[in-house]
């Protein structure tokens, strides 16, 4: 494919962080950037504070399990700017043997429960999260049910009223 013209958002991002942005694309008009996980907090802070970007609304955070690929997991951030009315999707890969990524709660406090959900369902650990515990499943549940290698037919013991 010929050199695609980057959108203004992605251009600003690549201009600022350079090699920390692994790849970008704008398929179907959705700006997407795959970034290195080590700098996720800095990138997110920049996206929020840069006067030309102003991504002040963190719409969604979710995990993806690409079983068989390396690195295995992916964390996806969907961002929106209420001021500039534009969106961007930030993706970052997390390996299975060390599924740790920095929490973005210091940037957007609303990401709290999304990170807990990703932890609960995929076992992705968010470093510096103030309250990283299960949000949907009960505390005594073993494993992370949305991982592709979680046995479909596995049943866990029924819990008592106090768990």
């Amino acid at each position: 494919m010929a050199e695609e013209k980057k959108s203004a958002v992605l251009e600003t991002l690549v201009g600022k962080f350079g090699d920390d942005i692994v790849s970008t694309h704008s398929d179907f008009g959705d700006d997407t950037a795959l970034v290195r996980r080590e700098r996720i907090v800095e990138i997110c802070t920049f996206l929020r504070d840069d006067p030309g970007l102003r991504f002040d609304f963190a719409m969604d955070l979710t995990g993806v399990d690409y079983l068989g690929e390396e690195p295995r997991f992916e964390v996806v951030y969907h961002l929106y700017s209420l001021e500039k009315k534009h969106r961007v999707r930030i993706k970052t890969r997390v390996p299975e043997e060390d599924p740790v990524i920095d929490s973005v709660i210091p940037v957007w406090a609303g990401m709290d429960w999304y990170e807990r959900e990703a932890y609960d369902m995929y076992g992705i650990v968010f470093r510096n999260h103030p309250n990283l515990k299960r949000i949907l499943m009960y505390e005594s549940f073993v494993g992370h049910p949305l991982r592709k290698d979680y046995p479909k037919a596995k049943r866990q013991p029924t819990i008592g009223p106090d768990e």
Partner: protein
Amino acid sequence: MANFVSSIQFSDPYFSVLLLLIIAVGMAVGFVFLSQALGPKKYDRIKYSVYECGVDPITSASVRVSVKFYLVALLFILFDLESAFLYPWAVLYRDLGWFGFVEMAVFVGILGAPLRVEEGGARMAVNRAKDGAPGFLTTRFEALLAWGRKYSIYPFTFATACCGIEVMGAFGTHYDLSRFGAEVVRFSPRQADMLLVAGTVNYKMAPVLKRIHDQMLEPKWVVAMGACAASGGFYNNYSVLQGIDKILPVDVYIPGCPPNPEGIIDAVVAIQKLLETGAPRAAERWPIKI
């Protein structure tokens, strides 16, 4: 008294009205005490627990509320009470004169004085717990009781999914479940004897459902409505209980996804048939103890 009886004119046309009144009041009052005396009672720790939503309170309700709250509430009652007496007094103020004024001043003074709040006055007599009713009742009498229960089933709806909409339809005017005696829906388990589980129950909800069942009146019936409550339905996954009969004794299953309101009527009629034939409830042959 004898004088009063001899004074009754039996030919008086109002005598039949008096008779009717005595019978009507006698029945109304009598049944209140009869149900208290005849109903089986089985008290345990869960029955005596205060909360009826199936879970324990996260914090103590008696800790966080500020004293000011109670003071304000007390003052409100105080002023309401005073004003109720002040109005008639104000209307008759001129006629009552100085006597009325002093009397009312004393009254306001008494009410305005600080109230003593008694501690621990209303404590539940937990140690009053006793076992189920002794089996001295004759078979005929049991049949009479069953006949009474047949038309006074009190449902408790545990609606967690789309089946709940069909339940509403069944209680509404079109299908009108009240024709079959299961008219009064109770949203407190202590006043209900038919648990209608309508919808998906997941593992996190299972202990809540179990506790609500334990708090219900004896004898009680459980209806598993719809594919999810009966078997987990198509939610064959990590989070959904594969049928409520894993934790509860189920008397009647209603198939469907969701079943239509006729299905609920059918279930109520099935329970009435169980009562008619004296068949044991599912709880009586329930082997699993959790």
